[in-house]
């Protein structure tokens, strides 16, 4: 047992050395975590859509229609880009992307309202981006409702004594009071950056080791002789040590820097991150078995970020996913981490309240460890042994196989 522990420590020490000697891995482990969240935060930082350009086709030209347009122009969401003489002209402006919406006030509008009937307004929205549509729709419905309430109060006054709505209603946006996109999307992305950078780094380290083995007849001069279990745990310890600073920086300081919701207790967030980082380390070691050279990590793992982001439920909620994708999402540590973290930061949940994701990550640990163990013992080590055996017969065989893949010979 004591010997095993010594092995673990030696593996951990050697892995630390390898991490800091390898510029590529340092970029993944440290630089990526430092830069990527900032980049994303800057992209989404404007949070909400302001002053979406709308062109008005006003066939009524009455005091009332001008009032509507004036009030729309005064909203945060809409800016009136101008009047168009007719729909053709407005359409042309839209096709030229001079505006993204057309408000049409038909000729009958003034007459209908004056007669005491309903007045009809039409808003034509460009649907290429949902936030645009949502902004225009919100602004128009707020303006028409406010004006409608005033008008209703005016007409009903003699019958029912009221000066506005009978029952007032109030929206209280919780978690993300600005209702901005950065505050929600970024919190989903942050834990994912940690996970992906770690997997990429681990896989690149593994790729480097494979390349050394290929050059040295199946042996890695930098590797420490240890049992599979000790190797996995030792590497995991190293990743934990390296990730202390990135975890604190990404999960705590990035929201602080950009003013995203930060209602979570710092200690609780760190507690939530502990099983996450361990599980991701095991997952990385499992997945890296498919890597054959350092640079193929870009090809094999980068795109998975997009898949994992969607599995967390950032744009499509998890409760609407089909059974299959729901289960696939359950298997990834980031799904649980993200959902726990988002609830903590936005709604100030305690660790006790997000215990479900927390325990799910602890549950993932033994599973991930077993997978990593199986991969290390039955796939990687078997492969190394066969390489050693093959290169004892023919020392050049491994490099020749590599050359053949590049189209030579």
């Amino acid at each position, binding site marked *: 047992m004591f010997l095993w522990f010594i092995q673990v420590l030696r593996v951990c020490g050697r892995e630390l050395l390898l991490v800091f000697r390898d*510029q590529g891995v340092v970029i993944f482990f440290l630089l990526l975590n430092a830069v990527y969240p900032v980049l*994303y935060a*800057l*992209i*989404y930082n404007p949070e909400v*859509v302001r002053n*979406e350009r709308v062109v008005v086709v006003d066939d009524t030209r009455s005091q009332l229609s001008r009032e509507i347009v004036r009030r729309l122009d005064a909203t945060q969401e809409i800016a009136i880009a101008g009047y168009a003489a007719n729909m053709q002209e407005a359409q042309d402006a839209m*096709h*030229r992307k001079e505006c993204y919406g057309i408000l049409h006030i038909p000729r009958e509008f003034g007459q209908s309202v004056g007669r005491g*009937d*309903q*007045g*009809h*307004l*039409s*808003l034509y*929205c460009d*649907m290429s981006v949902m*936030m*645009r*549509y949502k902004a225009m729709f919100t602004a128009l419905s707020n303006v*028409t*409702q406010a*004006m*409608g309430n005033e008008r*209703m109060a005016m007409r*009903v006054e003699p019958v*029912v004594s*009221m000066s506005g709505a*009978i*029952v*007032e*209603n*109030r*929206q*209280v*946006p919780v978690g*993300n009071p600005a209702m901005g*996109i950065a505050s*929600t999307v970024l919190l989903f992305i942050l834990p994912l950056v940690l996970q992906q950078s770690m997997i990429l780094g681990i896989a690149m380290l593994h790729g*480097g080791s494979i390349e050394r083995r290929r050059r040295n007849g199946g042996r890695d001069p930098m590797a420490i002789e240890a049992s599979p279990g000790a190797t996995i745990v030792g590497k995991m310890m190293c990743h934990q040590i390296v990730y202390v600073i990135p975890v604190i920086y990404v999960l705590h300081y990035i929201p602080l820097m950009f003013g995203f919701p930060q209602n979570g207790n710092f200690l609780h967030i760190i507690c939530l991150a502990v099983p996450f980082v361990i599980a991701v380390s095991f997952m990385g070691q499992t997945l890296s078995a498919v890597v054959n*050279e350092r*640079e193929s990590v*870009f090809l*094999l793992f*980068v795109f998975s970020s*997009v*898949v994992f982001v969607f599995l967390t439920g*950032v744009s*499509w*909620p998890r*409760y*609407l996913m*089909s059974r299959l994708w729901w289960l696939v999402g359950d298997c990834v540590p980031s799904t649980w981490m993200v959902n726990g973290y988002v*609830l903590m930061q*936005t*709604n100030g*949940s305690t660790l006790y*309240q997000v215990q479900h994701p927390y325990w799910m990550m602890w549950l993932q640990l033994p599973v991930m460890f077993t997978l990593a163990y199986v991969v290390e013992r039955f796939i990687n080590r078997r492969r190394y042994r066969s390489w050693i055996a093959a290169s004892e017969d023919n020392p050049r065989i491994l490099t020749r196989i590599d050359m053949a893949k590049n*189209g030579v010979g």
Partner: protein
Amino acid sequence: MMMILKYIGRSFKRGCIQLVRRPMYFLLIVIMPLLCSWFLMDLIKTGSVQRVPVGIVDMDNSSLSRRISRNLNGFQQVNISHRYNNFAEARDAVQRGEVMGFFFIPDDLENLALGGRQPVVSYYVNYAYYAPASMQYKGFKTISLLVNGGIVQTALRTVGLRNEQIESTLVPYQTHLHMIGNPFTNYNFYLNSTFVPCFLSLFILLVTAFSLGLELKSGLSSQWLKNSGGSMFLALVGKLVPQTVLFTIVGWFIQWMMFRCYDFPLNCNPWHMLSAMFLLVVANQSFAVLMYCFVPNFRYATMLCTLLGMVSFSFTGFSLPQEAMYPWVTALGYVMPIKYYFLIMVDQALNGVDLYYSRVYYAALIGFTILPMLLSWRLKKECLNPVYVP
């Protein structure tokens, strides 16, 4: 002329052999793009967010408040999955992630309402989950307006107004929304007609960058160049055309899935989109070559392609529109080929406008293809003396 054909043939053969000998290429050019596209489209196939789990806190327990909760449950936007006794319980449920928001009916609602003392109903919407929050807002807002309407309607009917008059009194201004091209606000149409091609272009960038870098890394680049008679252009053509063919076929297949299987809006001649897809493939390949012209180093060029490919999901303005972003982010968006494909898609497939309005975007995609030819001397210099920095 014969020489050129011979060189093309030789480098083409070499490119094909490389593709075939590494199963990883097949995985990343064919299997993964198709799998990921299917994943995205299957994930969101129902199209709109519905039945958001919400709670209700009814402190009044009057006939009016019960009617509100009954009507609310009838909405397709929300699903009252839990009822809570007080505010604290409901807040705890939101914090635990059990519900995504709740509707709060205060004490004495009916009394105050009928007495004309303007009680306030409030709805707490958790905006940490954006799409469900918007849906909840719609549902909650509508029900609160209906509560109002219900009471006024009863009052007006007692004084003998006709139904049409009541309607026009309650809602004097009726707004009609025309959602061009996507009348049901289908989320699948909106998200995946941009995300899926963006995903494909990420794969194109990665595979191109990787296959070029491998030549530099293995030190075989001078041989690669010699193979095609010392012409960088012919060497690139031979190497990349087999990939172009595969990617284009995959891209067209994805478009077929989008427009035929999942019924995405296609309001133009299909050839407009098919040609845009082909141009997107070539433009992305050229973009990766261009990165090598700027930084002829395996790791940095691949990293640049990865970084830009990943971030292009965000800065091309699929989710936050470009006019809302900082100007420099918007400008950065125009650096990526996917931006132009996105604009073509919006113009052609979604809005079905004249080709005339999209001419610039097609031209830009072609421009991406020409650009690396002007700079390929830099890559050639590196190919003659490859230095691999791990």
